[in-house]
Each structure stands twice: as C-alpha cells, then as structure tokens.
C-alpha cells in the first residue's frame, strides 16, 4: 500500500483511531461525558478526513475497496447520522442503571462497518462490512438489557439477520463456484464469457438477492422488521432504519452496476429482474397496507420504511432499461439523502420523548396534544411525516419526484402504479399522527428533554425542509457523482 492508498482510506482510519481512543479512555476513566465527547470528536475528525480522502481520488485500495465520490457521499451521511445518534443517545441513556459508555463504542464500530459497505467492491469486503455493522447493531438493540422488549428484539434480529447473512453467503459460494469470481467486476467479466444459464450460478444469484432482501427487509423477508423497530431503543431504531438500509442498498447498487446484474438478456438475468420487481411491488403495497393497521408509531415507521425501500427498488430496476447507470445512481443518491433526513428526524422526536429509564413513548395516543406541550418537537415530527408522505416543499417530494422521473424514463409502468397507490395509502396514516398531535386537553406525563436533543431534532427538521425548498445543490452533487461512476463503454 502506498501513501496515497492510506490517504484515500483516511475517513476509515480516522474513525478506527477514534474507536481505539474511546476504547482505551473508557477502560481507564469511566465517564459518560468523556465517552460521549470523544465519540463526537471522532465523528467530526472522520468527517473532516473525507476531504483528503476525496483528493486521493477515485482509488482502488486493494481489490476489496473502491474509494470514490460515491463511497464518500455515503460515508459522509453515515458519519453525520452516527453523530446525531450519539447526541440523541446521550440523554436517552442517562438515568439508566449500568454503564452507558460501551454504547458509543458499538456506535462507532457500526458506522465503520457501514462505511466499509459503501466502498466494498468484493464479496469479502461486503461480508466484513455487513457483519461489523450487524453484530454491533445486535448489541446496540439489546443495550438497555434490564428491559424485556430490547432483549426480545435483539434475539429476533440476531437469528433472522443471521439467517439472511448465511443465505447470502451460500449464494456467494455458489457464484464463486460457477464463475471463480469474488470481485464484482470479475464476476461480470466471467459471466460475459461463460455459461450464463449454469444452474449453480442462477441458484447463487437468487440466494444472494434473497439475503440482500432480508437485510433490506423487503416483503416477504420483512418479518423481523416491525418487532425489532418496536423493541429497540428509539435512537438505535433511528440508526437501524437509516444507516443499515442505506449501506446495504449502496453495496447492492454498486454490485448491480459493476457486476452488470441486470444487463444480460439471458433467462437467468431476466428472471432476476422480474423477481426484484415483484418484491418491490409487494413491499410498496403490502408495506403501506400493514402500516394502516398500526397503533405503535415505531411499528408504523417500520412498515413505512419497508414501503420506502420498495420505492427505492425502482432506481435499481431502471438499470434494466438504462444500463449506463447515471440515472440509477443519481436517483438513489437524491432519494436516500431525503429518506435518511426525514426518517432520522421522525425517530429523533420519538427518541427525545423516550428514555431508557422511563420507557418508550410509542403508541399514537401518547402523542395526542404534542403541539401544545412540545411545539418544536411536534413541528419537526410534522415536517418529517409530511415529507414521508411526499408533500411538496419537503425532501420527500423531491425524492419521490426523482423516482417517478426515473421510472418514466425506464418505462417501469407497473412499479409506478404501485408507487402511486402506496403513496396515496400512506397519506392517511401519516396524517393520522399529525391530527392526533393537534388534539387539546390530554394529560400524558412529560419526560425531561435536553436542549441538545431538541436542537438536534430541530436542525434535522430544517434539513428536511431545506432539501425540499432548495434541492439544487444536492441534485448537482448527485449528478456529478453519477457521471464520475459511469462505466466506460
């Protein structure tokens, strides 16, 4: 490895360094504030290190990692979300018996795993990144271990996510058996020359896609999602709903691009496209229908996230019609930036109203009258929910608009109908919460909130609105990244 390789890896290395410092610091000086401050400092340092990393350029560091603007975009988002989660977790974990310091270690580690996924271009890097992320998340979900729901959620997540990983691994093994390729680009080269209808290859690709669908909680592989979202502590749910989804989708898109997953017109490839389309339509429709029935706000957001990942599959399937990938990448980046902002702000509000000691504010009834009790938090939640519903002047509108444009270009009419139907259904349950918040005269015991947490939520709410009102910089940036990624013909 040369100096330039290390420079390209600067964000990963900085975060690893920060992780070591926090680890050593909490073993000598136990203190919530020390651990929190060092964690925040590590995130800031890693964020600053993105720039030297970008200067080194699109650069392949070992055959495993590709550090380009695409990876840097996601790394930046993950670092920011990590920092926001640390800010929210600080007040949440206060007052809880037992030590809160290790939570921050797990948070840093999970972020490192997500960053590895965003730059993975090889099955080994995919496996390592995914498992660093998932295993840290199991422990984060179970962190308030005196409580019952987190324990149950963590066990369910561990078993079902483990099943997803092993299915994906078996798929990788079969792909390796029939193509001899572990790198994404090698895979494309080998499939282009070899026998594309090889049974082992088809089975391997199908298992790989099923494993990814487990991780993205697409229907019918979604059964763990509502329970885990409901049982996990609110700051962790927010992190899970944003970082782990976005990281897996980032690597899936890179795989589809580099490995030309949807480009060959053989039966095997066509059937993968069809299976993905069916899964996407099911997720959009069933996800939204099940969300209608929920009384718990975290479960509702879980089904809404299933539906949103379903919408996002449109961006991937556009590759079928427009294989150069510019459209797919631009749409994905714009959609995910909006989705992450709005989902995180919704969970930030839930997390600000809950705490490990006092329990979760979860049922919609407990949000009644929030506008009169906590106007700032209620306004942020309203912005987030309207954005999730796709109302204009919010980030969610731009995100859906982009998906729609991409779908029209790719002539994916069936998926577009599902998108329209799903969005129409979703308006009802998002507005249900907004209306509940305006009801007067309810008496729900207040949880002490912290100025830092409320400020974080408010900033997130403003980001959601800003992305909706003035999206031009984001769109330009996403366009540049997409152009840079474009494969040479």
């Amino acid at each position, binding site marked *: 490895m040369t100096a330039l390789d290390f420079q390209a890896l600067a964000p990963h290395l900085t975060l690893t360094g920060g992780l070591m410092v926090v680890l050593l610091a909490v073993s000598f000086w136990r203190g919530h504030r020390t651990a929190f401050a060092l964690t925040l400092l590590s995130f800031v340092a890693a964020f600053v290190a993105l720039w030297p990393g970008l200067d080194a350029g699109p650069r392949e560091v070992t055959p495993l990692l590709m550090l380009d603007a695409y990876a840097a975009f996601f790394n930046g988002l993950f670092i920011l979300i990590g920092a926001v989660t640390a800010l929210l977790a600080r007040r949440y974990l206060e007052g809880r018996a037992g030590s809160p310091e290790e939570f921050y270690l797990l948070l840093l580690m999970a972020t490192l795993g997500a960053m590895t996924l965003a730059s993975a271009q090889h099955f080994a890097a995919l496996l390592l990144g995914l498992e660093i992320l998932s295993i840290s998340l199991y422990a984060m979900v179970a962190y308030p271990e005196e409580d*019952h729901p987190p324990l*149950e959620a963590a*066990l369910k997540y561990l*078993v079902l996510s483990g099943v997803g990983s092993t299915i994906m*691994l078996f798929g990788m093994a079969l792909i390796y*058996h029939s193509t001899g390729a572990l790198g994404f680009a090698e895979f494309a080269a080998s499939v282009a020359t070899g026998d594309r209808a090889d049974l082992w290859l088809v089975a391997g690709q199908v298992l790989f896609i099923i494993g990814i669908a487990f991780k993205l909680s697409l229907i019918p592989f979604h059964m763990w999602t509502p329970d885990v979202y409901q049982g996990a502590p609110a700051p962790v749910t927010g992190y899970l709903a944003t970082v782990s989804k976005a990281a897996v989708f980032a690597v899936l898109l890179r795989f589809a691009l580099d490995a030309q997953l949807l480009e060959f017109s053989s039966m095997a490839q066509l059937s993968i496209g069809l299976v993905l389309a069916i899964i996407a339509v099911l997720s959009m429709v069933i996800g939204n229908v099940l969300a209608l029935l929920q009384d718990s706000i975290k479960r509702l957001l879980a089904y809404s996230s299933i539906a949103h990942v379903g919408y996002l599959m449109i961006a991937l399937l556009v590759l079928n019609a427009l294989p150069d990938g510019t459209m797919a990448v631009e749409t994905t980046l714009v959609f995910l930036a909006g989705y992450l902002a709005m989902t995180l702000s919704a969970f930030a509000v839930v997390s600000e109203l809950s705490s490990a000691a006092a329990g979760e504010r979860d049922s919609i009834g407990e949000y009644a009258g929030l506008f009169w009790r906590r106007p700032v938090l209620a306004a942020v939640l309203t912005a987030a929910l309207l954005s999730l519903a796709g109302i204009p002047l919010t980030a969610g509108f731009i995100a859906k608009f982009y998906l729609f444009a991409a779908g029209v270009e790719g002539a994916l009419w069936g998926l577009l109908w599902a998108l329209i139907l799903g969005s129409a259904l979703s308006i009802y349950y998002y507005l249900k919460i907004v209306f509940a918040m305006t009801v007067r005269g309810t008496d729900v015991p207040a949880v002490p909130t912290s100025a830092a947490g409320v400020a974080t939520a408010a900033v997130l709410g403003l980001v959601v609105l800003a992305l909706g009102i003035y999206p031009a910089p984001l769109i330009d940036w996403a366009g540049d990244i997409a152009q840079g990624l474009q494969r040479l013909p």
Partner: protein
Amino acid sequence: MTAVSVPIEHVLVLAAALFTIGLVGVLVRRNVIFLLMSLEIMMNACGLAFIAAGARWAEADGQIMYMLILALAAAEVAVGLGLVLQLQRRFDNLDIDAASELAG
C-alpha cells in the same frame, strides 16, 4: 496408488443438504441454544461450499473466505450467548416463544 477424487458437485450437494438442515432447524426449533446451533450449521455449510469452490479454481480465496466466516460465526455466537444468558436470568427458560411479547 491413484488418488480418488470426489466430484465437486457432490461436495456442493452435501453443503446444500447441511444448509437445509440448518435452515429447517432455525424454523422448527424453539430453544435458543438450538437456534444458535442451527445457524452455526448453516454457516459451516457456507464454509464447506467456499472450500469446495476454492478447490475447483485451485485458489486460496475460498479458504480465506472460510476463515472470515469462522471469525464472523464466533462474533455472532458471542453476542448470541450473551443474550441467552440474559434470557435465562429473566425468564428461567430458553424457549424463544416465552419471550414473545411484541405483536407480530
């Protein structure tokens, strides 16, 4: 003496059979320890498939993937057993349904 070579497909079929046994175990067993064991069987089936594939291409990559899988399985089980201890302490029971309160 001639070396008897096993056709690669046979090894893959064995791996697939092991994988299926593990998957069925996860689906039907309710005891958490058995769930973790079934997961372990599935992971080892993946490892076996990787080693067979590596042998087919005469590369070390398959074996390296196996080592990564081993490390991953160990990490996963470490967290899993931690949760099992908590479950035992709380419910005096290792049945996963005993801990089922979240509506499905």
